[in-house]
């Protein structure tokens, strides 16, 4: 049942117009640029010590934004930690993200998580965690719940090539196959799981063909091609919504940057490999197509980049001006109502604060 197995060829990108209007394409491109600008700025901020950690998404924008734009507003997204493009395409305000990166009182998550591990119920973007793969089974459960409620909702799990080795990949795809869950499994094969190359992650020819083991289709798509991704996800969404069950999509992309700001990719991969993939920079490809279609020119592109960078600066500025989280919030949200023990621990904590033993 696998379609298009083998490596995505670095062929000419699919022209716009198939599924995405010029206007929509431009909107998508704008988000891609915003994501890239955010990434670039955040890497600097981390080096300056202004944010504690960062996971860059550069190179994966077409996959993320192409996928996100094929979804409906009511669909549920189960992300990993690298889905900046998806968050932005879903409409999550940049400022909310910067509050999260800093972990201040403006952060909806109340400063509880490391940068990039965000979630916004309002945008049906479930809160990410670090353990690899756990969102995959959860996406299946939410899809079954939506079906039970008769809601026209599809769920999508985002994960990496490394996550295909996880327990939840196996369980999630198996459950989805058995129950024909309206779920899309969107694997961004960015060729690396930290220092482990795709070939050492698993011995199958493609990741997409793993879907066979669960009795549903898997497709490989060129993840640097906004339109190809958009089409693949639209098709999968249609299948899911019409009761035909799940699809596994392997979007072949490349992580341009380090795994995270704690990582030094020169220890394990060659610059030439990076350079090779940079030729297929999804932003460059989209730009060329838009220019070809007459929707964009160099001047407008420059303006668009400036606008994106300004937007990033504004969001950052606002976030940096926001006060830190209140100490007492440490004890909130463990349960709906604190247990007596938590009440007591908080009282002890407040006493220590009041006596100056600990300082905010």
């Amino acid at each position, binding site marked *: 049942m696998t379609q298009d197995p083998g490596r995505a060829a670095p062929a000419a990108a699919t022209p716009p117009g198939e599924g995405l209007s010029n206007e929509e394409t431009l909107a998508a491109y704008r988000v891609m640029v915003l994501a890239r600008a955010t990434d670039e700025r955040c890497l600097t901020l981390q080096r300056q010590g202004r944010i504690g950690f960062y996971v860059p998404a550069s190179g994966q924008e077409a996959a993320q934004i192409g996928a996100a734009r094929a979804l409906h507003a009511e669909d*549920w997204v*189960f992300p990993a930690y690298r889905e900046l493009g998806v968050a932005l395409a879903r409409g999550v305000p940049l400022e909310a993200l910067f509050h999260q990166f800093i972990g201040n009182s403006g*952060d*909806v*998550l*109340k400063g*509880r*998580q490391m940068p990039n*591990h965000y*979630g*916004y*119920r309002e945008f049906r973007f*479930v*809160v990410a*965690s670090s*353990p690899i793969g*756990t969102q*995959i*089974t*959860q*996406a*299946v*459960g*939410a*899809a*079954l*719940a*939506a079906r*039970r*409620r008769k809601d026209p909702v599809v*769920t999508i799990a985002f994960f990496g090539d490394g996550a295909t080795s996880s*327990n*939840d990949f*196996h*369980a*999630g795809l*198996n*459950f989805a196959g*058995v*129950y024909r869950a309206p779920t899309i499994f969107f694997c961004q094969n960015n060729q690396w799981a930290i220092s482990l190359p795709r070939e050492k992650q698993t011995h199958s020819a493609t990741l997409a063909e793993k879907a066979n083991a669960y009795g549903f289709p898997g497709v490989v798509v060129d993840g640097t091609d906004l339109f190809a991704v958009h089409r693949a996800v639209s098709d999968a969404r249609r299948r899911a919504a019409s009761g035909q069950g799940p699809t596994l999509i392997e979007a072949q992309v490349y992580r341009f940057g380090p795994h995270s700001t704690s990582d030094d990719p020169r220890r394990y991969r060659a610059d030439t490999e990076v350079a090779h993939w940079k030729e297929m920079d999804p932003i460059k490809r989209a730009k060329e197509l838009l220019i070809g279609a007459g929707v964009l020119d160099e001047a407008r592109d420059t303006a668009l980049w400036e606008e994106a960078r300004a937007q990033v600066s504004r969001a950052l500025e606002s976030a940096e001006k926001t006060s830190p989280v209140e100490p007492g919030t440490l004890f*909130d*949200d*463990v*349960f*709906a109502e604190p*247990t*007596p*023990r938590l009440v007591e621990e908080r009282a002890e904590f407040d006493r220590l604060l009041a006596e100056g033993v600990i300082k905010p």
Partner: protein
Amino acid sequence: MTELTLVQAVNRGLQQAMRDDGDVLVLGEDVGLNGGVFRATEGLLKEFGEERVLDTPLSETGIIGTAIGMALYGLKPVAEIQFLDFIYPAFDQIVSELAKFRYRSGGQYPCHVVIRSPYGGGIKGGLYHSQSTEAYFCHTAGLKVVIPSTPADAKGLLLTAIHDEDPVMFLEPKRIYRSVTGEVPDGDERVPFGRARLVREGTDVSVFAYGAMIPVVTEAANALAAEGISSEVIDLRTLVPLDEAAILASVEKTGRAVVVHEAARFCGFGGELAALLAEKAFFSLKAPVTRVTGYDTPFPYALENLYLPNVERVSHAVRTTARAG
């Protein structure tokens, strides 16, 4: 009121909740057609259909991950793990996800799953059908841990669990699934979390226990009464949240405490209880707190009866504690 066994009470609790609330569903291995290997889900498939009673593939990871996704969406899944000994493939979902969803999202994503699982020894189940590892869950912030010891509590606490807003580990003492019967209220009568149950009043020693140890401890207390030792028996019922007030009040009265559980001793729940008393009832205690527990070995098969606390070991410990100091 109806006279039921403990496992029947669990069954009625599930049925009640499913009748009252269309969002409640059950999932797990063999819970449908087979009615659960202990028959706790008997009849539910027939009454509620395949959409609400899911026979799952053999994957605890899948059961709990799926249940979490359902709960995030707004349903009230009740997952059955066939034996607590088989919960570990789902441990990552429980510890990393279920327990932390509300917290890590700043309250945006409550994640209310009830995990029911038969636990404990006494059925000649050997290493993998006997363990009591409640301490793992008690140590995991974000989980409630509930253990009934009577049919009425089994139903009443289960109903509370299902309608709670937080994840609940609902551990069922399978050894007394059928050996203990009792009157159970009909309808949606709930037993609140965080309140211990006074099984027997006494003045000399406080004995704390839960689950299948309650009948053992009660029998010991009755026997000791004949010797003139008056034991107060307290069924903790919910380990998280814990009824510290009841615990401390009892020890303030008796000045002596014994805690009994099946689990291994080292870093077990009894350690927490003893520590709590050492912290908060230090000046009331007239003797060391005694722990009567399983040993720090894996759970045995042939020697099960020597591993588990029994009436004699409990009596001996209570007697010794009553005389110490």
